[in-house]
């Protein structure tokens, strides 16, 4: 039964109905099932599964994660079992939950993105998140994420191949994130999510080697929040499609900050590792915030930052 209080939190992003605006960020919540001992998956806004590629991928070798001040680096390199296993094994398991599942896809070429979209069209997935911003793979990631034309091409191809809502995930490693946002919006993106990880590096001063096997890695966690809030604010002002905000969200207050900046929904990533209950706790915290402020709907927050 959906109570009145839950209604307060309900949002619809690009046609995807969510009970709460708190999603889980790709790559940080596995396929959801890994966290089912801690979180009632039915209480999560949406599960965005690990970045998926056509063929299975083993990812990068060597050490893959490092802690940094109030943040972390990862260089997983899109390890995943490939889209076929996702479709045949994982999506059916997720179908038992009443939670929208969004598949994060990554290709090496425009055609691969299209192929992924086509295959996922009628599989139970309720949306696609097009990852054009993975810093951890040579191709198929950052190249599309830093060039407005390539990004638009990917989005058009994906839109052609699927009827699913298409969220495009932007990289923060660009001079002008608004340019990228407008390019993918024009190309048909139904929503925009940001930020993916910043590109970072750490060096071990004992061994004189990079800490990560892949030398550089994706930088996430509370440390990056100021950059993420800024970019969400810039993009939300510039586009009409809904924005999903993420980057360093640890608490309900952080989520509210992103929503005031213009995010219609948020995603929690690194925070899951620190507190496995966080996605549900944040939703409850937002509800409390709304109540304290006499608001009836979470969407009353969206973009309400007063910059005058």
């Amino acid at each position, binding site marked *: 039964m959906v109570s009145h209080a839950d209604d307060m939190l309900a949002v619809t992003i690009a046609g995807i109905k969510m009970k709460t605006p708190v999603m889980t960020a790709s790559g*940080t919540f596995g396929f959801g099932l890994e966290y089912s001992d801690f979180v009632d998956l039915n209480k999560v806004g949406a599960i965005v599964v690990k970045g998926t590629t056509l063929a299975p991928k083993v990812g990068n070798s060597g050490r*893959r994660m490092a802690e940094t001040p109030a943040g*972390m680096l*990862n260089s997983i390199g899109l390890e995943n079992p490939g889209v076929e296993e996702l479709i045949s094994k994982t999506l059916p398991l997720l179908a038992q939950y009443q939670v929208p599942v969004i598949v994060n896809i990554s290709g090496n070429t425009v055609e691969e993105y299209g192929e992924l979209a086509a295959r996922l069209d009628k599989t139970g997935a309720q949306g696609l998140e097009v990852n054009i911003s993975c810093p951890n793979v040579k191709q198929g990631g950052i190249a599309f994420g830093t060039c407005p034309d390539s990004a638009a091409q990917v989005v058009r191809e994906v839109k052609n191949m699927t009827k699913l809502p298409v969220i495009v995930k932007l990289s923060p490693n660009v001079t002008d994130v608004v340019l990228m946002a407008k390019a993918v919006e024009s190309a048909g993106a139904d929503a925009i999510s940001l930020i993916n990880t910043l590109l970072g590096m750490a060096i071990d001063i004992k061994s004189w080697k990079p800490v990560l096997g892949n030398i550089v890695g994706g930088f996430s966690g509370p440390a990056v929040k100021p950059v993420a809030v800024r970019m969400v604010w810039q993009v939300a002002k510039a586009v009409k499609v809904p924005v999903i905000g993420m980057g360093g969200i640890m608490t309900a207050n952080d989520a509210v900050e992103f929503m005031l900046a213009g995010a219609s929904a948020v995603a929690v990533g690194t925070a899951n590792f620190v*507190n*496995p209950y966080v996605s549900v706790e944040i939703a409850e915290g937002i509800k409390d915030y709304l109540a304290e402020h006499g608001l009836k709907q979470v969407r009353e927050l969206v973009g309400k930052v007063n910059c005058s």
Partner: protein
Amino acid sequence: MEAKEAVAKTCVKSRIINQSAITYDVFVMVVAAPEIAAIARPGQFVHIRLTDALEPLLRRPFSIADCDSSEGTLTLIYRVVGRGTALMSGLKSGHTLDCMGPLGNGFTLSGQRPLLVGGGMGLAPLLMLAKTFCSCSSTLLMGGRNAQELFWPNIYRDVCNNIYITSDDGSLGHRGFTVDLLPGLLQEKKFDVVYACGPHVMLKSVAEVAQKYHIPCQVSLEEYMACGVGACLSCTCAGTSGKRNKVCTDGPVFWTEEVVW
């Protein structure tokens, strides 16, 4: 649907019952975590959040070195190596930590006459294993850098009947590595399983020797971990099945045949 089963994994606010230093940098901590203690098995670990602050941000994994389900306590034995363990060693009894667990797959208790092989802090998880086997008098082969690091005989005195010791510099027991004594032990005694935990190089050579003597062998691996529950893929390593193994959930304990060495 009403009577809910004990949840396998959980996060519990755990009071520190006791903490003491064994050496200048190795500490024994006992925490109250009844939910975890009730179901923990040897080889499993807990993932600990040390502070509510944002730094250090991530949890730290520690093997369950001992577990008293009636008292509801867990014992951890750890070495101070960095920021998190330094912070941890400064915490006093009464302080509360956030323990997530029990995580991972523990040792398979299949053998009747096990040989335990441990190096350095790898001796921590073997302690609970040895206690489980206590009745059938397990044998322990332990190695360390020097006598100073080998405080472990005291800890294991009442737990293992037969203890063989090696040290890199010969300051205690046999001079050399655990693997030096291994062929002799596997030849003579009738061990039907080997359980090993320690540095990667040690595990590799233990696995080789065990394989040579056709004795099933489990090793407990260590990897850098973010989530601890199989979600982030920080900790995976190449597996012989072709798939990558998640150290946190497929392991940390593996049969040597599963591991690409």
